[in-house]
């Protein structure tokens, strides 16, 4: 059992590392926009490449952080009814939600997403604009990759919820539902 929980912290750590790294794209994005604005307005050099780079960075930023945001409980929930649920009920919601909604959704997006990227790679699809960025498959690959991290975070949550619900009391305490520190994530934290 403790091996299983160790595995979940590995999954969480993977999603967290990638998400926290992608957060720094925020600074890169600010610098790219500043460069673009400076060149465009003071030197009258418009760059399609820089403008496309902006949404590339933005896309990568939120896609690669999808899994991390789930481990941090940042995805918004309607807590009107659920705030009165016991921790056990909450664990059930998480367990069923992951099995019935999140994991199938992740699987479908990853499955068809790989096709989608493969198609783009096959033709080495580039920007429709002649002066745009080449190799569009790179940013497209962020969709299945980001959803993969979401799947990792979901699998971890699923295992944690199962151990909490069906394990011994001692095992339950070691899950993310067992410690008040992890279960009490506010919406905006």
């Amino acid at each position: 059992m403790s091996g299983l929980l160790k595995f979940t912290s590995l999954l969480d750590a993977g999603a967290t590392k990638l998400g926290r790294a992608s957060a720094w794209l925020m600074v890169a994005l600010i610098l790219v926009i500043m460069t673009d604005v400076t060149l465009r307005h003071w030197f009258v050099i418009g760059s399609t490449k820089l403008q496309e780079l902006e949404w590339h960075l933005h896309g990568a930023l939120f896609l690669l952080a999808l899994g991390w945001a789930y481990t941090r409980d940042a995805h918004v929930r309607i807590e009107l009814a659920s705030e009165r649920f016991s921790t056990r009920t909450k664990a059930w919601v998480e367990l069923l939600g992951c099995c019935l909604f999140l994991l199938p959704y992740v699987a479908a997006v990853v499955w068809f997403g790989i096709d989608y990227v493969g198609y783009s790679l096959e033709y080495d699809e580039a920007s429709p604009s002649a002066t745009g960025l080449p190799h569009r498959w790179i940013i497209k690959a962020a969709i299945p990759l980001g959803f993969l991290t979401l799947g990792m975070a979901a699998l971890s949550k699923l295992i944690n919820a199962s151990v909490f619900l069906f394990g011994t009391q001692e095992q339950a305490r070691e899950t993310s539902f067992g410690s008040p520190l992890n279960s009490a994530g506010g919406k905006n934290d």
Partner: protein
Amino acid sequence: MISFVEFLPFLMFLTLVPLLFSGFPIAFVLGGTGLAFWGLAVLIGLENPNSFFLVVSRIFGGVVNKQLLVAIPMFIFMGTMMEKSGIARDLLNTLQLMTRRIPGGLALSVTLLGAILAATTGIIGASVVMMTLMALPVMLERSYDKPLATGTIAASGTLGILLPPSIMLVVMADLLGTSAGGLFLAAVVPSLMLAAFYLVYIFARTSLNPSLAPPMQDEEIESPLTAGMVLKSFVPPLLLITAVLGSIFGGIATPTEASGVGAFGALLLARLRGELRFTILRDVVERSTLTTTMLFGLFIGATAFSYVFALLGGHDQILHIIQSTGTGGWTVLLILMIAVFLLGFFFDWIEITLIILPVFAPIIAHLDFGGHLPDPGLTTMWFAILMAVNLQTSFLTPPFGFALFYMKGAAADLVDLRDIYKGIIPFVLLQLLGLLAILMWPEIALWLPTVAK
């Protein structure tokens, strides 16, 4: 009787609602429900088993590959940076000193601050929590009337979704296929009008009954107001916001460019204050990324949901119903407004906008209001502003106002829910007055964009 297949898109919504209240993240409920109904359509032979590919392509084309949406993380970063580097707190302190001789000065300061700052936070939950934590303890310490204090904070905190640069207006512009700069312009007069309503109300109430909001005693003032303080804490953020909005309105910069400059400006302000330590920067970068990801995770889920809704023929059916029953523009508008108002009790604007707007976007521009609008081409703009004011009002309306719960959560034992309810009623009435005015005189919203052209 309609057949089962025709009923499917409506069944999607009926399934969605109870699931949303399970407390599972909305983004995943939306995506999962979309997938389930797509699977059902494949099972009964309505869809081919490869068409989910189109959903992925829609996620790329509709959410990732969008220049305008880049403005959202930038505005979130700008707001978070101003909050975490203490710019917001200084602004409140200075405002408070500037208005200390005026009855209700602190309440007036909070309104002004709400108007200035909530504009950059963009999420109701977050801005109301921030304002409650920052201003409520100070107001209560100065023995302000509890209902007055809470009403002021809740109303001003929610004004931010309307006041440009509003993230909500960026999302609406994208979904409705209109210009974000245009919506920003259209929102200026309505949001200033509402802020003015608040100010006049607070000033009138506290002038008549000064005990509701005792002015600051001279001995309480630790440091007198100096020109240096105003220059240091008040002028820079105000200049920044004016520059960002000015360059959009002046047509000098796109919203995306202006948002990037605004984010850079916030970084610069933090640096000038000596607050730009690595830990603060990392905190701001990570927080704003989490907020951005929450929003775009929801955007992706809603895209999957509404794309499957369209695949199942939902849009055509709604169009068909409206056309075949001969429902006029006013009736459609009224139904939508009531629906949005009721949804606002339970959901933040993000969910409402992302779920409802894609369904109705195709028909809004074609609604006919006769000669009520100066130009039928402005219907979308007028509708967006009405929806924004309506949502803001809905967040404030007891007993279920979304913002009120957030406020109670942040204030904990400082105030009763009853004080909050009592305090918000006058503000809700002011909101309704504003909403009615914009309904009756569309020029309030449409005048500025027309003259700016």
